[in-house]
């Protein structure tokens, strides 16, 4: 009986140790997932957010992107355009955050694929966006490319994907 209790305690301790290990040293996939989830929170603004909060969110948002990051938009009903570099992204984000009362961004069904070198990652997801007071929302398939720079995952490329060609 004592042996059984000891074995159970040992198994519980091992499980706890493994859980602590995954918390302290998360896998690169988890880090990328966390980054994408955090990007959605940063890109979300609520009506009560003041100008300072919005300006802070813009500068935080820029921190997710590499210096030479590119964003390609090709969405149904709008002309395609590309944002190149942090300055253009900052300008676009500031414009959106100023003109919109609320913006709710969610990235759903996120799939992460790590590169062979474990320093790059491809992320596919579905973006769900509510803007303003409208109850209607837009959905868009998205593709992100990230690279690890000095221990941090930064977005190098964002591309909208047309599900229906």
């Amino acid at each position, binding site marked *: 009986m004592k042996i059984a209790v000891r074995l159970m305690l040992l198994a519980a301790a091992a499980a706890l140790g493994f859980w602590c290990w995954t918390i302290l040293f998360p896998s690169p996939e988890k880090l990328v997932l966390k980054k994408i989830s955090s990007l959605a929170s940063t890109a979300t603004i609520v009506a009560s957010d003041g100008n300072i909060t919005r300006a802070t969110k813009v500068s935080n948002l820029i921190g997710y992107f590499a210096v030479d990051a590119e964003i390609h938009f090709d969405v*149904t*009903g709008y002309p395609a355009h590309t944002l190149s570099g942090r300055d253009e992204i900052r300008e676009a984000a500031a414009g959106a955050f100023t003109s919109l009362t609320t913006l709710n961004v969610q990235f*759903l*069904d996120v*799939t992460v694929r790590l590169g062979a070198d474990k320093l790059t990652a491809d992320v*596919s*997801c*579905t973006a*769900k966006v509510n803007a303003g007071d409208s109850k*209607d*929302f837009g*959905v*868009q*398939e998205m593709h992100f490319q990230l690279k690890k720079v000095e221990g941090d995952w930064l977005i190098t490329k964002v591309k909208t994907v*047309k*599900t*229906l*060609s």
Partner: protein
Amino acid sequence: MLNANDPSGRPHWLQVLTIGRRPKTTLIRIAVLVVVCIVTFKFILLPIRVDGISMLPTYHTGQINCINRLAYLRHEPQRGDIVSVRLSEPGGLANPSILYMKRIIGLPGETVAFHGGRAFINGEPLDEPYVKFSCDWEHAPIVCGPDQFYVVGDNRSMPFDFHTQGRAERNRIVGKLLL
């Protein structure tokens, strides 16, 4: 729980109401029900809530429906079928959170065009009794690939450019709407 006042030893009415006369049988029934529900709603019928105006007047926002994931096991999707198309990358067992709901009008290898608000398949006008709102859509012919289906919503009253439609790969079609 036995009723101490009941000399017959019958179970208390509360026990009968909550876990039945035979608790073991009840537990087995619950377990079977849970397994059946999980298998049904994960692998066979995918419950959905309609959101958006693109399938008006056939379906409107707030309606609850199910997608039959086994509908195309024995045959390929047919013209007129209302199907769900996944936005996220195909593959994996996880059900997607958001799906497009559209009607198939073009089959693989066919040419789809719009003239004067009517759909034309291989140059022939398509009879679409489900389209209730008239439109003036004009669009050059598009050829579906060998693995592509042309899908579009029933609500053609919105401008062509704002109506999400086009060729969907076969592996993106999750299933057919049940009701």
